[in-house]
């Protein structure tokens, strides 16, 4: 039993060790310049990871911006407002949303979401907000915006289920006290519940962000896969996870492979940090309360 539990620690150590060893070549060759270089030209032996880092950050942030209000809204609805009978159904459906494989999201995104974005959403955004520069250029449907939307759909269940746990952990007398002072239901939720739960909600958001950063298949299928840094969200991009998925098994030189592993290492370290921060926040809130309601 001790050995089994140790295996978890060993696995994480092994992940770090293997990825560090296999990325030695590129670590030595490029140093820190790897992360600020913008050229990705395997044929010429030039490897710079900035376009992928940019794409990962922008698509994930976009996803979080879209997902957080929805996820918190659902969590509030389920814990504070909805009739008991509906509660189970809605949480079951959101759980199902979490169980759909990434590749199925990708399939749906290619054939359903992208055309919708291309025909309806992008022309509208371009007309209304094109002047900002964020929504300009050709409207393919595929691209950074599409990646952000599909990621948002994918991380909503994670954020909402943990937010729900955190909201349930808020003591009942907190709600009663606020109501007794004459608050409306919304004021009770805002002052008595959300304010108490904000650290935990922040934790759930960071956890969702962590998932978005590492999400691979759906994003690879829809982001357009072009290693460029473009201001417009309509433009195709590339993420760290996608470039590994696309190029890893066809990396021809040792340096190429090493560069890809280094991207993986960076991804691993970032997600370890993000997840640790999120877990600490969630733990600080839900500690000592029953696991689920």
């Amino acid at each position: 039993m001790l050995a089994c539990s140790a295996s978890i620690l060993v696995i994480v150590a092994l992940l770090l060790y293997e990825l560090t060893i296999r990325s030695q070549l590129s670590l030595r060759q490029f140093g820190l310049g790897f992360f600020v270089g913008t050229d990705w030209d395997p044929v010429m032996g030039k490897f710079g990871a900035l376009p992928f880092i940019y794409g990962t950050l922008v698509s994930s942030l976009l996803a979080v911006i879209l997902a957080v209000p929805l996820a918190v809204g659902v969590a509030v609805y389920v814990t504070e407002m909805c009739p008991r009978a509906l509660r189970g159904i809605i949480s079951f459906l959101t759980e199902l949303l979490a169980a759909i494989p990434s590749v199925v999201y990708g399939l749906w995104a290619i054939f359903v979401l992208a055309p919708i974005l291309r025909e309806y959403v992008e022309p509208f955004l371009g007309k209304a907000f094109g002047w900002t520069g964020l929504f300009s250029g050709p409207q393919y449907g595929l691209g950074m915006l599409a990646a952000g939307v599909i990621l948002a759909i994918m991380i909503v269940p994670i954020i909402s289920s943990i937010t729900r746990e955190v909201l349930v952990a808020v003591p009942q007398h907190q709600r009663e006290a606020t109501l007794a002072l004459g608050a409306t239901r919304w004021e009770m939720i805002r002052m008595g519940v959300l304010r108490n739960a904000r650290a935990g909600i922040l934790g759930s958001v960071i956890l969702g962000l962590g998932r978005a950063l590492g999400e691979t298949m759906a994003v690879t299928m829809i982001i357009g896969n072009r290693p460029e840094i473009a201001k417009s969200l309509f433009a195709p991009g590339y993420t760290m996870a996608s470039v590994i998925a696309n190029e890893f098994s066809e990396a021809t030189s040792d340096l190429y492979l090493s560069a890809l592993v280094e991207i993986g290492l960076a991804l691993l370290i970032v997600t370890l940090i993000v997840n640790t921060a999120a877990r600490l926040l969630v733990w600080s809130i839900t500690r000592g309360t029953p696991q689920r309601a």
Partner: protein
Amino acid sequence: MATAHISMFRRAKNHAASFAAVASAVLVIAPLMAIFGYLVIKGIGSINLAFLTNTPRPVGEAGGGMANAIIGSLIILGIASIIGVPLGTGAGVYMSEYGKHRYSTYVRFTADVLNGVPSIVIGIAAYSLVVLPQQHFSAFSGGVALGIMMIPTIARTTEEMLHMVPHAVREAAYGLGIPHWRSIVSIALRTARSGIITGVMLAFARVAGETAPLLFTAFGNQFWNLNPGQPTAALPLQVYVYAISPFDEWHRQAWAGALILIILIVVAVSVVRFATRKGRFSGA
């Protein structure tokens, strides 16, 4: 009435907030419905006996199926379970039954963090641990990657389920003079059995749809392969390859493959949900 004192503005805000909450619930459920709807509409027509029993045909030839991918997925998932289930449950038992000190807090924390590691990164590790020494892609390396992904989920649910076994039950066992290990095996694990199976099924459903780590471990294969040492097809992998291909026939099959995948997963999740509802662990 008490509410008479509430100003119009506050009341309006209250209604607006309620409306927003309901709207967000609808907006979250909508894509789910859309995804299921499209899967059924686009996939159901292509599922037939040939699809389930044939291997892929070359481009341009109609027909063919995903039988090799379905079997391949089962082989890979079998290997993953052999690795993930014992390690996961063992770690869970340790954390709940032996780990009264700081060490198990670290393990618990690491398990949660490992749960959030991107699957593609685990794929790279499996590649360098298994594929490189073996010199070729294999079902086994894919199983290793997915097995690693199962461990944290199983460990954490096993631990939670064991925590729910009442103390009185254990004390009764000790009262009969049963040693600690025996009380764990015969009493605690037996009582928590359905909950632990739930955790295993959830972990299984989660990795069943994983594609990213299989891209460069199991790699995929257009033909029959039952040898775990060789490149092997997997259902999610096949769906991915077909979806990004330029052929309509393959798109059709991608939808059908995705539908089969989702049916497997939804059935697993629903069975679990039903079992936990009706079972002893209704609180879970």
